[in-house]
């Protein structure tokens, strides 16, 4: 791989799909089945240090001020939120044991888990939760503070309850609270200054860090002896080794320098599977790779053109060729691992004759010339662009590829300086509203429908209805309608759903990744 460009957000962890020659069918590995069954197969053993080679070094451990992968997957071992998302994608009570919701659905009362202590031994109190939530939601620079916009106030109630008020009935609230940015830390940083607190952080998580330096070559986290889950974590310590080169990470795993690695290039999956000393884990993600069509361009303002493009693109061939079969081909704009994904979405499907017929109905029946913008540092996007270029040629659309470096690429599409662009979209939490409103609510979503300028009154209405619908059957129906409408209007084409790919030595047990890309290490043990 030649991706010298080191991208950073946690979404970017997934961008590094590598591409090469032969395609292999990895098949549908049931997520977490490997890790899950292996963990049960033997009694967990305590002790030892896990050496985990990861692509990106952390720059800060402050949950409220980062969206960077290296930071998030480090600080989430130290700080924990009220709820977490399990590897199966389900919300799980964590520092809260549960909650009650008022009749008007505007007041949540959370019950804090008894017996939880911070790593310095002080007990968790409602004041800590209030402090942490307020700090996160009121942070003007917080990349995820938008998740908390519905919260109007927070307060302690008694010795073990926290009351959260929302402005309107807001179904995604529990998911919002489960975001890493809403993790809990001691009120007023336990008396320390902010800077010194994050250099010597104190949390309730399974691991602690004794002194944090940004961007160090490695970082060792030690077992938190007062962790609330008795007997856990099994490991004495975790050492993260920061290795940005894909090949070097693989070599470190083969050489025994690392026990576990992240971001395995899809091209390497088949050869790793042949190695009996190594396990490969493919975990579904809340990510979908999209071809976005700019409706400010007259071609793409024409619904027939968009539909024709969607029909001309063969996502099965694309996913197979470009991801070595590791990714599932695209359909709905919701990834299959996301709550309320509908397998019955009315898709346009791939058919060249249908695509030609659709284009014939447009203002450009004979086709036209256009261009696709990509982040040129990522080989996967280059392959995608070339395949799409080829597939669209068949219906008379000539595509030029415009590759920019990461930062310039982001600036270009966010300024609508593009015709089509390819990028990932990701849900940060378990509730699909984030993706639905960010990609479809032109006015309130924050991105003018993922920079496509798609503006459908009926779809927007459904998206907003789903936000205040608490009945899950009714919500599922709303999201199914939304997914079908989007598939028919084709503001963007869902290209594929890539998995997270990890590899580890056979002595590692209990490792699992949730669809948000987070892995909790308290269940991991070394044989």
């Amino acid at each position: 791989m030649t991706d010298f460009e080191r991208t950073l957000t946690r979404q970017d962890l997934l961008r590094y799909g590598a591409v090469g020659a032969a395609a292999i069918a990895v098949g549908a590995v049931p997520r977490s089945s490997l890790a899950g069954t292996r963990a049960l197969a033997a009694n967990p053993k305590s002790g030892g240090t896990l050496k985990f080679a990861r692509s990106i070094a952390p720059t800060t451990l402050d949950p409220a001020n980062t969206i960077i992968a290296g930071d998030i997957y480090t600080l989430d071992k130290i700080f924990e939120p009220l709820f977490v998302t399990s590897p199966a994608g389900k919300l799980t009570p964590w520092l809260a044991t549960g909650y009650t919701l008022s009749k008007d659905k505007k007041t949540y009362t959370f019950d804090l888990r008894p017996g939880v202590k911070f790593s310095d031994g002080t007990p968790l109190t409602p004041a800590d939760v209030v402090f942490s939530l307020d700090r996160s939601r009121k942070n003007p620079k917080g990349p995820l503070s938008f998740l908390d916009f519905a919260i109007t106030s927070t307060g302690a109630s008694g010795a073990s309850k926290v009351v959260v008020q929302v402005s309107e009935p807001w179904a995604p609230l529990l998911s919002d609270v489960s975001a890493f940015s809403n993790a809990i830390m001691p009120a007023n940083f336990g008396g320390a200054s902010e800077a010194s607190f994050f250099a010597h952080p104190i949390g309730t998580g399974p691991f602690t860090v004794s002194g944090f330096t940004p961007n160090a070559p490695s970082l060792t986290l030690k077992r938190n002896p007062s962790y609330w889950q008795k007997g856990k974590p099994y490991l004495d310590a975790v050492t993260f080794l920061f290795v940005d080169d894909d090949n070097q990470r693989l070599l470190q795993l083969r050489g025994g320098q690392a026990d576990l690695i992240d971001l395995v290039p899809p091209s390497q999956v088949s050869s790793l599977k042949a190695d009996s000393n190594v396990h490969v884990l493919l975990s579904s993600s809340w990510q979908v790779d999209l071809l976005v069509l700019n409706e400010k361009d007259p071609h793409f303002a024409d619904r027939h053109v968009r539909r024709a493009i969607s029909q001309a693109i063969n996502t099965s061939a694309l996913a197979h060729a470009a991801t070595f079969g590791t990714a599932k081909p695209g359909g709905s704009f919701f990834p299959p691992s996301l709550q309320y994904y509908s397998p019955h979405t009315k898709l346009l499907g791939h058919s060249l004759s249908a695509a030609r017929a659709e284009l014939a109905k447009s203002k450009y029946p004979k086709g036209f010339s256009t261009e696709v913008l990509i982040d040129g540092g990522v080989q996967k996007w280059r392959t995608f662009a070339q395949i799409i270029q080829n597939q669209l040629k068949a219906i008379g659309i000539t595509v030029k590829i415009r590759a920019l470096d990461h930062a310039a690429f982001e600036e270009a599409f966010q300024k609508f300086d593009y015709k089509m662009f390819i990028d990932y979209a990701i849900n940060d939490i378990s509730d699909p509203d984030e993706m639905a409103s960010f990609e479809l609510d032109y006015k309130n979503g924050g991105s003018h429908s993922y920079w496509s300028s798609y503006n459908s009154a009926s779809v927007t209405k459904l998206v907003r209805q789903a936000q205040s619908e608490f009945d899950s059957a009714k919500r599922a129906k709303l999201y199914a309608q939304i997914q079908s409408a989007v598939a028919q209007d084709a503001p963007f084409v869902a290209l594929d759903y890539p998995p997270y790919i990890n590899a580890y030595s056979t002595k590692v047990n209990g490792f699992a990744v949730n669809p948000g890309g987070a892995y909790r290490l308290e269940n991991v043990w070394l044989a």
Partner: protein
Amino acid sequence: MLRYARRRLLSAAVVVLAVTVATFLILHVEPGDPARAVLGEHATPTEVQALRHQWGLDASLGSQFWRYVGDIVRGDFGRSYLAQTSTTSLIRERISVTAALVGMATLFSILITLPLAALAAARKERLPDHLVRGLSVAGLGLPAFWFGIVLIEIFALRLHLLPVGGWGDSFGAHIEGLILPALTASFAIAPILIRSLRVGMIEVLDADFVATLRAKGLGELRVLGHVSRNAVLPALSLLGINIAYLIGSTVVIERVFALQGLGSLLLSSISERDFPVVQAVTLILAVGVVLINLLTDLLAARLDPRIRLE
């Protein structure tokens, strides 16, 4: 000698200044906004604007440049946008890695070059000469990267003598971790040095004073000793240029061997437009290159009085 040194120092300062201006301009003219990179895609334009203002990125290019130069003069490289810490502290941690890598690679290059060049020169147009020349042509043709992979395969994966990569956490581990990357880097420059030193030695071997030495009955080894002192000058300035090249190539080598030095810091900072870090690292690398060239020039002048008088 002093006048010569002053002249060289002055031109070195001009080069450093030019690099400073060029880095600043390229970074600021190139599209890509650090505020967007830090805030993520959910940030509103107002939030992005506020951060740009806080970082002074909304000021005119001219006033940003003067502030940057003023800060450097005061020894202040600013704060990293991403790590939210002082650029100086980020660099301090990494500069020793890069310096150690360059130092060890230079040492290896010299250790490889001297005996091989001497052997080839002494056995001119015979088997050892052909072997050395063949090897250096092969070395020039093959990418250093490939040597790195082969070295890892042999010494780390098969023999388990050295780590695959990484910096380790003790002095001994640092040294062990540096051997393979330094060897890889030295393979990239040793062939050029060998060829240059060999030619120089052959020329000197034909000189009259060598005939005199031989006539005096000196052994071949001692003759080579006299010869190398005279032949080393062109190789020395080549070495200087190559150390400069080496400093540049650490960007790739550090990545391949997972060494967190200045090169890897530079790469990650460029992609996220962490302006203060990119500017500081580029400046330091430029100063390093200029200093090495200056030192070799001065050393050459010291060894050969003719250079000073030019």
